């Protein structure tokens, strides 16, 4: 075989690989879906108006001025015998500077977002495969979602058992949030690597993997208990999108997923107010403005929508160029 023929064969295979990868990609859809669903949480993030709440009990001084008020913030916690107070939706609705008016609706909304977004993404890749003839594997993405939901369900239980002992603050909170993402992504990369092994796993390997998954979920859940308050939905979407970026092997998808993860982490440490202030964006009065709590989802949602639209336009142009060529 001559050098020219060998080099030509290698180039041809490289070209086939790139072409197939381009045709296979469909990440604009999950980016847009999760972006729009994230922004859809805005109306449910209205701060609780305690002054006009019928549950607020105020005492007044003889001169008519307000002395003290007892405010009962709405929440989704309830008592469980033996465990104490458990809030199954705390990863979605607690930790805001101003408590939200409808925590149950917000918590259920995020649960629905995670389930619907996951099902829509899996359906999309299968539907797209039947159209273009090349299918992206969503197995790792599905495993991430299952494990992520297990983590979010475990957090309230670990939180109830541990009380405030697992709460991190300041820099420990920041590093803990980052470690949460790094450990989760590391586990995903290991799982993808193992799934591409030449031989199917032996029984012993399967048992070891199952133990590894359980230990990882418990470690991540413990770290999540110490670091996540209100952004459970955003952070699970972030890990899911980072997984999709690995599966898609796309630079743009990686850029969008990393940017989204970055702003989701900033929202988790309640840094969005500082960003808005430094950008000179007026949020308005906290009692009425949706953005007061909603600023935590505005930038993450915008990153995904813009990233999704750019990817869609790019794909449309590639498809059009392919047809013309």
């Amino acid at each position, binding site marked *: *075989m001559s050098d020219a023929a060998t080099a030509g064969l290698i180039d041809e295979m490289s070209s086939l690989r790139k072409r197939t990868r381009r045709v296979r990609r469909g990440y604009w859809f999950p980016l847009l879906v999760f972006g729009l669903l994230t922004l859809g949480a805005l109306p449910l993030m209205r701060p609780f108006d305690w002054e006009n709440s019928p549950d607020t009990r105020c005492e007044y001084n003889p001169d008519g001025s307000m002395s003290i008020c007892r405010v009962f913030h709405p929440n989704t916690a309830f008592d469980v015998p033996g465990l104490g107070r458990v809030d199954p939706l705390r990863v979605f609705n607690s930790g805001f500077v101003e408590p939200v008016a409808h925590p149950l609706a917000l918590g259920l909304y995020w649960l629905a977002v995670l389930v619907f977004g996951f099902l829509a993404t899996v359906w999309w890749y299968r539907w797209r495969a039947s159209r273009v003839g*090349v299918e992206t594997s969503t197995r790792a993405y599905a495993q991430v979602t299952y494990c992520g939901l297990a983590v979010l369900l475990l957090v309230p239980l670990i939180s109830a058992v541990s009380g405030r002992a697992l709460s991190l603050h300041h820099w420990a909170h920041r590093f803990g949030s980052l470690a949460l993402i790094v450990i989760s992504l590391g586990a995903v990369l290991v799982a993808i690597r193992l799934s591409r092994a030449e031989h199917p796993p032996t029984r012993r390997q399967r048992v070891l993997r199952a133990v590894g998954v359980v230990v990882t979920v418990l470690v991540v859940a413990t770290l999540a208990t110490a670091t996540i308050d209100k952004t459970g939905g955003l952070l699970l979407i972030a890990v899911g999108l980072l997984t999709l970026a690995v599966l898609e092997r796309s630079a743009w998808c990686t850029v969008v997923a990393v940017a989204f993860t970055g702003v989701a982490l900033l929202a988790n440490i309640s840094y969005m107010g500082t960003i808005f202030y430094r950008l000179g964006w007026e949020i308005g009065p906290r009692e009425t403005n949706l953005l007061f709590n909603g600023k935590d989802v505005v930038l993450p949602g915008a990153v995904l929508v813009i990233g999704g639209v750019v990817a869609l336009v790019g794909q449309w142009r590639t498809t059009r160029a392919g047809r013309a060529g």
Partner: protein
Amino acid sequence: MADDPGRAGGVSGQHPTTGLDDVVHQRHRLGILTIAAEAKRVEFGYLRSTLDLTAGNLSRHITVLEEAGLVRVDKGYDGRRPKTWVSITGPGRTALTNEMAALRALLTRHDGSPPG
């Protein structure tokens, strides 16, 4: 060429052509494996149009790869239309990696050899 394609492993310490696998080395079969390695599964029609092969030719190449255990073939329906899906196996992925490594080693060896 290796006598036993399934065992044509690494290329270190041997002439690079030792790593070339008869089953995989054929251009179209290498193309099928390259495309299949990029996806969970690939449809027969996509392979045919991308590799510019007739249905009969492609079928023969896929059968060779399937008999060597390098790809798996699944037949199904999309509505009423029959569809054939091809996916790469673990040994297929390894064979592709070895083949590409052997080809690159061959090129590097020739690049490094003195002229004449």
